[in-house]
């Protein structure tokens, strides 16, 4: 299928399927045995692009990697600016609204130099979501290996020539020492420093010290599904994710609980080293969701940078003042883990409870249908509380007893929506709610992943000319503006002192937010059903 798509794109004399004889002459294929190359005919296409041609667009599906032979390409996230349309509305009404608690959607959450991970050996930053790649560099590796959507738009800056490679051949290339060395060198040169600077302990290190760390760091790869370390293991190093995703989980009385999904540029494993204790969580490499539901194929690779415990300790000793910063991060992670620690003591939950995934809800919305007059004030409040005018709540969903479980984020124990975001724009906030950052590329993976249809994709087109002009400025090409979508999810109105607007504005006391496990285990459901106790009070 992928091969058919690859060849279908051939047009005129600017593209050509390369034969084995053509490939053996190229350096990156030099290590590969001719027999191996012969096994995969038609999997590499040589393409020529004129300056200004769009090679791929962010959010689109992709199955190939590109290796640049000549020329340079621009890589950028255009829709970050598109999403900036959720900037505050202007005018007196908006001003009064903010005074009374209207929520600003667009607010800086990270510093300008913080990274936006993309599918290349280089990352973008918030302040400058744009970079260039030159000859000898690869992009689209995650799309090729894991079928991840394209994480950025790539446009030819000059006339360029590149190889478009399918997965089976790319996997062979990954086994080639020359190719690996080249990729590792590219990574070390262009992205590794940015990733290491993302780790608090390394952020303020002098360049020479960081270079020392960089040179000693090991680049390792594991198959998806592999446990990198388990809770209780001895802490042997801190890890930074170079490619792929990692699930962090902890054992709880009722089973294992997911604390976070980490993506490219994120780090883990620092707490054990800092506190000189054993690991307090299990970290496992995870596969991309498209692969998990799809055909049977080899697990994806997760690539990591490992900084050994001794190097870590040496830095801590040399720069004791930065220990404080790391301690803050570690404490925050521990606090999050404790916050998520809800005792699963619901005695024999019914099959219906399990089917509806109610126990996933750490902040489950329920609407008491005996009280609700279907006035939709909750939905209106949701729209009105968010400056982008998009509702995160839909008053449809399954019923449980007298309650409606509407489509709205439940703050799941295992937030599978976070798996597979190609640009790491979905994350958990400190209070465990799910946040989608402004640089969402609108690929819709999170919406497909959410089992409860709580993430909605919405158009950005309505935001008009101003956004189009901004897009044009960054992309310098009209073609990249074709699709403008982004995801929106209930953020529990975390910034509103009055709590979730839907609950606050229900005139009939029919809308509640509850911790499902506590609610069910306390028998709150049945108490409330008897009219003696409202769920909010029960929990």
């Amino acid at each position, binding site marked *: 299928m992928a091969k058919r798509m690859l060849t279908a794109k051939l047009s005129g004399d600017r593209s050509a399927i390369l034969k084995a004889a053509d490939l053996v002459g190229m350096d990156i294929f030099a290590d590969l045995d001719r027999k191996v190359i012969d096994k995969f005919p038609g999997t590499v296409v040589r393409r020529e692009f004129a300056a200004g041609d769009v090679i791929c667009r962010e959010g689109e599906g992709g199955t190939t990697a590109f290796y640049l032979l000549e020329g340079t390409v621009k890589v950028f996230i255009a829709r970050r600016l598109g999403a900036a349309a959720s900037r505050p509305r202007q005018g007196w009404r908006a001003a009064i609204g903010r005074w009374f608690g209207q929520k600003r959607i667009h607010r800086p959450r990270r510093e300008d130099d913080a990274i936006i991970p993309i599918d290349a050996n280089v990352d973008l930053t918030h302040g400058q979501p744009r970079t260039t790649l030159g000859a000898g560099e690869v992009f689209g590796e995650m799309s090729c290996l894991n079928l991840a959507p394209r994480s950025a738009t790539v446009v030819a800056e000059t006339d360029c020539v590149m190889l478009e490679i399918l997965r089976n051949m790319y996997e062979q290339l990954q086994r080639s020492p020359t190719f690996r060395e080249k990729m590792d060198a590219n990574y070390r040169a262009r992205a590794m420093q940015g990733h290491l600077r993302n780790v608090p302990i390394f952020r303020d290190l002098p360049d020479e010290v960081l270079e020392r760390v960089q040179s000693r760091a090991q680049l390792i790869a594991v198959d998806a599904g592999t446990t990198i370390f388990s809770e209780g293991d001895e802490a042997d190093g801190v890890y930074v994710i170079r490619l792929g995703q990692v699930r962090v989980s902890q054992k709880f009385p009722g089973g294992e609980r997911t604390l976070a999904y980490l993506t490219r540029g994120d780090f883990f494993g620092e707490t054990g080293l800092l506190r000189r204790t054993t690991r307090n969580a299990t970290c496992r490499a995870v596969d991309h969701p498209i692969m998990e539901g799809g055909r049977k194929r080899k697990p994806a690779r997760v690539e990591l940078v490992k900084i050994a415990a001794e190097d870590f300790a040496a830095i801590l000793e040399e720069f004791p003042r930065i220990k404080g910063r790391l301690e803050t991060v570690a404490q925050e992670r521990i606090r999050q883990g404790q916050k998520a620690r809800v005792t699963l003591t619901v005695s024999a939950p019914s099959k219906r409870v399990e089917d509806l995934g109610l126990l996933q809800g750490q902040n489950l919305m329920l609407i008491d249908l005996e009280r609700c007059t*279907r006035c939709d004030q909750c939905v209106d409040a949701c729209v009105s509380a968010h400056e982008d005018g998009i509702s995160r709540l839909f008053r449809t969903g399954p019923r449980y007893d007298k309650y409606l479980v509407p489509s709205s984020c439940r703050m799941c124990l295992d937030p599978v929506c976070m798996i597979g975001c190609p640009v790491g724009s979905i994350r958990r906030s400190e209070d465990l709610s799910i946040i989608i950052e402004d640089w969402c590329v609108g690929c819709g993976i999170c919406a497909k992943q959410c089992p409860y249809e709580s993430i909605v994709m919405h158009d950005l087109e309505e935001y008009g000319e101003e956004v189009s002009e901004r897009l044009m400025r960054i992309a310098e090409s009209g073609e990249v503006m074709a699709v403008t979508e982004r995801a929106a999810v209930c953020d529990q109105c975390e910034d509103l002192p009055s709590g979730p607007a839907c609950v606050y504005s229900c005139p009939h006391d029919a809308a509640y937010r509850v911790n499902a496990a506590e609610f069910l285990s306390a028998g709150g459901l049945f108490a409330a059903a008897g009219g003696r106790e409202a769920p909010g009070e029960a929990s």
Partner: protein
Amino acid sequence: MLVDRKHIPWAVATIAFGAAASAWYLSDAPRHLNGPSGSTAVGLTLGSVALGIMLFCAALSLKRKVPHWRLGKASTWLRGHIWLGLLTCLLVGLHAAFRLGGPMTTLLWVLLALVTLSGLIGLVLQQFIPRLLLHSVPGETIAQQLRRRLNDLPMLAERVVLQYAGAIDTAAPPWQDGGDAAGQPPAGGEPIRRFYLDHLRGYLAGENGGDMRDPHRAENLFSALHTMTPAHAHAGIAGLNSIYHLHRDLQRQRRLMRVLFAWLLFHVPLSWALLVLVAAHAVMALRFWT
């Protein structure tokens, strides 16, 4: 809004305030030769309080325009609206010394009565219609989608008929032995087609009359159809049956929701009319107050 234990403080406060106002009125009444009226200090004060409460009650509809603003919980507002609104009747009565007065004040009395009555009807409806919706409309949908879902049902039913009878407006061909391999519908679809044309289509299109409006008759028709068709067509009949029931549910939901919200058609405009006339009454009264 369900009247539950959270209303108790409001009810107690309303009764206490009403009793205090009545006591004040009764203690003041003997002092006036012509009896109590709206122009006495007590009457004017109680009238002003009533006007203030009316303004507060009217502000509820403005608050709904900005539901998330931190102006207090919507449910607290609604409780205040209900109980203070009831208190208004007593305060207005004390203010007017329970006299109708001239045409203007009589009109105000009528409007106040209608507003209060429509509000009380709304409150009563809210005690049981949400429960009715919960228990008698399992296929409930959101109000904005009702029409669309109802419009989709005939199309869904036709799909089922096409699948089992092969055609809708022409007689089903006498296929034998299933014929699934050739992509043809299985045999025995003609009764389904006839049933759809004679009974279900008109019902789903909302035509008046017909057998399907009576649920018992409709069940009998479905049972009869069941006996007339081969086993492989029973899934199709089940599909039509569920479409029929969904249609009934949605129609019932539409009726119930009309009832649930109909009182607002009177309550809101009458309230605003009352407020305008009360303002006019206040201006006139103060102008000629001596």
